């Protein structure tokens, strides 16, 4: 019995030794690349010296099969080497593709690329955005200032890492808290409804005996699948939940909110979101109203045809329209063809902003047109005939009769339009992906709040941070809606 542990220890020891030996051999005279932490969509590579002094940068290449030649692989990213004086280091957690030099965060240049100091002997970087659930092969190729590889690019020895590791390594996230919470909410909804029914019974309202039963499924679904996620989202905003640890999130107070306000470009993206929403809603209402008035002319020929075509942007699935505009706006697309130019509309910040707004206006006008058409028909023509007999000009009729009477439609519809524009994720995401690029970790030139939150959550994986953004966005919307309704009510009272 005694030898067993001994043999085990010995075998392990031998194994460790042989592994070290292999590692040493692989390192040889050259630098060594090791896959460090593996996780879902992210791999950490660690590069240890000696470093060829001619190295100006390292190119990271990858493929989902083993390769030996560079043309079989895809380029992932570039890590620069050089003088780091005058450059800044991001805070821990600020950059998702963290790079470290001898244990410290690496410096970044103006474009956000990591720069490794010439004196450093070892560095590591997180490679993000890998396809999950695969084995990835990675090669690091040092290049000199002229861009010439310092390795034989036809005899590469990539290292392998798996990108589905956390799913295997950590147990699946504990679903019990969620299940318990959902159960509790469903039970309390049932209890509430029973209580209400009991109250009704006590007051002798027997006709409505079944009413609570009828609304119960809807209310329970609403409570469990809308109110609970909202509360959960608020709680998430105070935790460090991200994609690498889901099961063991910790309460971190207001840190996420502090982080939000430290985001470079936060005021820019907020300002653009409001400009975007207000510009959109203004033109939606304006054009929708003009079109509705035009279609409201009695005896207009072809009214049905016009109306049907004008409703198309509403009828066609939005993502298809936006992608079509994307194609038309390409440098070789239809718009450039018509203008006789070769402009990449989405490449330049100013142009891209105008263009995304124009496309979203195109999408939203039919809804407003339909709303106003209905409201105009409801106005009836008597009032206008009375004005006609009184000799009121058509313009005065429009200003003093039509518009004031449309206000009851206009106020809720434009608020709704504002909220929709505010949340118009598809338009931005499918047209410009928030680009053009502005700065590292910053929202892009055409990012609006919701697309940026999406990026924080699902590109960077910072769920807690994204939840904090969401809470703030919600507060903004509530604040805006409240002010708007109060303003319009105030003018109504004054009028």
């Amino acid at each position, binding site marked *: 019995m005694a030898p067993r542990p001994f043999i085990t220890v010995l075998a392990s020891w031998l194994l460790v030794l042989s592994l070290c030996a292999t590692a040493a051999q692989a390192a040889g005279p050259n630098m060594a690349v090791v896959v460090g932490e593996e996780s879902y969509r992210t791999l950490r590579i660690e590069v240890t010296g000696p470093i060829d002094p001619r190295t100006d940068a390292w190119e990271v290449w990858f493929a989902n099969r083993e390769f030996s030649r560079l043309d079989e692989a895809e380029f992932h990213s570039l890590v620069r080497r050089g003088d780091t004086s005058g450059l800044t280091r991001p805070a821990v957690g600020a950059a998702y593709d963290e790079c470290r030099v001898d244990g410290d965060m690496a410096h970044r240049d103006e474009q956000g690329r990591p720069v490794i100091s010439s004196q450093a002997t070892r560095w590591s970087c997180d490679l993000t955005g890998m396809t999950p659930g695969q084995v990835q092969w990675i090669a690091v190729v040092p290049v000199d200032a002229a861009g010439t590889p310092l390795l034989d690019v036809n005899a590469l020895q990539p290292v392998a890492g798996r990108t589905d590791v956390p799913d295997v390594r950590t147990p699946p*996230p504990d*679903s019990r808290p*969620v299940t318990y919470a959902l159960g509790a909410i469903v039970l309390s909804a049932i209890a*509430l409804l029973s209580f*209400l*029914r009991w109250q*009704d019974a006590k007051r002798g309202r027997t*006709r*409505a005996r079944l*009413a*609570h*039963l*009828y*609304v119960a*499924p*809807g*209310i329970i*679904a*609403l409570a469990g*699948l*809308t109110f609970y*996620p*909202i509360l959960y*989202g608020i709680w998430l905003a105070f935790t460090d939940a991200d994609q690498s640890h*889901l099961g063991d999130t910790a309460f971190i107070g207001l840190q996420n909110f502090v982080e939000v306000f430290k985001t470079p470009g936060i005021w820019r993206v907020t300002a653009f979101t409001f400009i975007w929403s207000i510009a959109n809603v203004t033109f939606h209402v304006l054009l929708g109203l003009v*079109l509705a008035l035009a*279609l409201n*002319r009695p005896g207009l020929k*072809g009214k049905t045809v*016009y109306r049907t*075509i*004008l409703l*198309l942007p509403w*009828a*066609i*699935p939005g*993502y298809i329209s936006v*992608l*079509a505009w*994307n*194609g038309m706006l390409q440098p*070789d697309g*239809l718009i450039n063809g*018509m203008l006789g130019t070769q*402009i990449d*509309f989405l490449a330049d910040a100013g142009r891209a902003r105008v263009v995304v707004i124009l496309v979203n206006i195109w999408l939203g006008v039919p809804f407003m047109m339909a709303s106003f058409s*209905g409201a105009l028909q409801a106005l009836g023509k008597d009032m206008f005939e009375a004005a006609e007999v009184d000799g009121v000009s058509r313009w005065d009729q429009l200003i003093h009769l039509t518009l004031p009477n449309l206000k009851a439609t206009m106020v*809720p519809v434009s608020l709704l339009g504002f909220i929709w524009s505010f949340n118009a*994720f598809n338009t931005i995401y*499918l047209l410009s992906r928030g680009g053009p690029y502005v700065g590292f970790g910053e929202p892009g030139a055409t990012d609006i*709040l*919701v697309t940026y939150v*999406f990026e924080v*959550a*699902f590109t960077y994986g910072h*769920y807690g941070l*994204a939840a904090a953004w969401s*809470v703030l*966005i*919600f507060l903004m919307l509530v604040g805006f809606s409240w002010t708007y309704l109060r303003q319009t009510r105030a003018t109504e009272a004054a009028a």
Partner: protein
Amino acid sequence: MNQTVAQKSYVPAELLALRSWLPAAAAMNGLLFVGEALRASPGGMGLTATGLLLLLALRFTLPAQAGAGRLWALRLLAMALIAVGFGAFMLTDRTLYDVWSRAWLLGPGVLVLAWSFFAPVQAWSTGKGGPEAAEEGLARNRTRLPRLETRALHLFLLHAIAVIIVPVIWIADVAVSPGNILGGRIGDAFTLEHFRSVLGGSQFWIWTRNSLIIAIGTTLVGLALAVPAGYAYSRYDFAGRKGSMFAFLLVQMFPGIIILVPYFMVMKTLGLLNTSIGLIIVYSVTALPLCVWMLKGFFDTVPRALEEAALLDGCTQLEVFFRIVLPLSLPAVGMTALFSFIAAWNEFLLALVFNTSNDRYTLPVGLSSMIPANGQLWGDFAAASIVVSIPVVVLFMLFQRSLIQGLSAGSVKG
């Protein structure tokens, strides 16, 4: 001066029309200015701006009352406008866009010039027309003015539908053009290769299957939840009615992004990512408030007397609901079903987040994945888009009036 009633109220139809057309043309040139700015053409911008100012100047030079004269100033300005329009046209490559955009300077210029020589306009502006001329003019205006207005209206609406229809034509053209050409002449080549490759491949059918399962599931679950609730809100007064109706309304105002992350987390924890059930649940709940409001509106229109009669005949409340109310409001229920089906069929963001593997994609995510990732299959994308859009567009158009009514009942009145 003692004027007759006819003289007092007569203004030539042409001038009346120009009073509103000139500002409209100026506004149009304001838009064209944005176009010139987008294509970074300083010359075009300058000339468009000049044209805009000239149009406004013309508007204020129009004689405001009989005998105001100013015809020569009007003609001079009009000629200047024509010159500017012509100059701007010569400056460019004379593409279709250029022809059209300059027409918005040349057209008004020519029109003003021509009409300034029109006898009734001249007579009125110089104050030479007597009471008879005014009466004749009024008689002429009676047919002339509506005709001018209708023409302008048609011109405006044609512009509007051109803007609407260009992407549609473009997509149809890309779908039947060989290769992945984005520009080029419309209708210069024809091929069905893209339709063949989309409909012949398995991927499109997998996405369609996913979308169908999810959309139909959403419709069924959504209706099962919304129909009883809508009925209860329409018919009964019960404790908690107002409060819960307000809750439904509140949810409708929540922006999707707020619940996006928590939804994702909940679904991940429950292991419902990459499943149809996850999306069905989320879609039916997000569409629920609007469906409940729509249905409540529809049920409100079913006369209560019918139910009371049935109750007197000895039906139970459940029987009344299933035998009387539901059959009567079947069209309305169908409309709500159509609404939730289309909403689920078109939804992009949640489907994008919830489904990471290609064979779980719904059509929106699948179609959009054809563009940036795999070498931009514009032709295939266009063909698939047409196949996907046609059923929903046709359904929408067929039922547009009821759909819009239902939606406005749900969104505006609520």
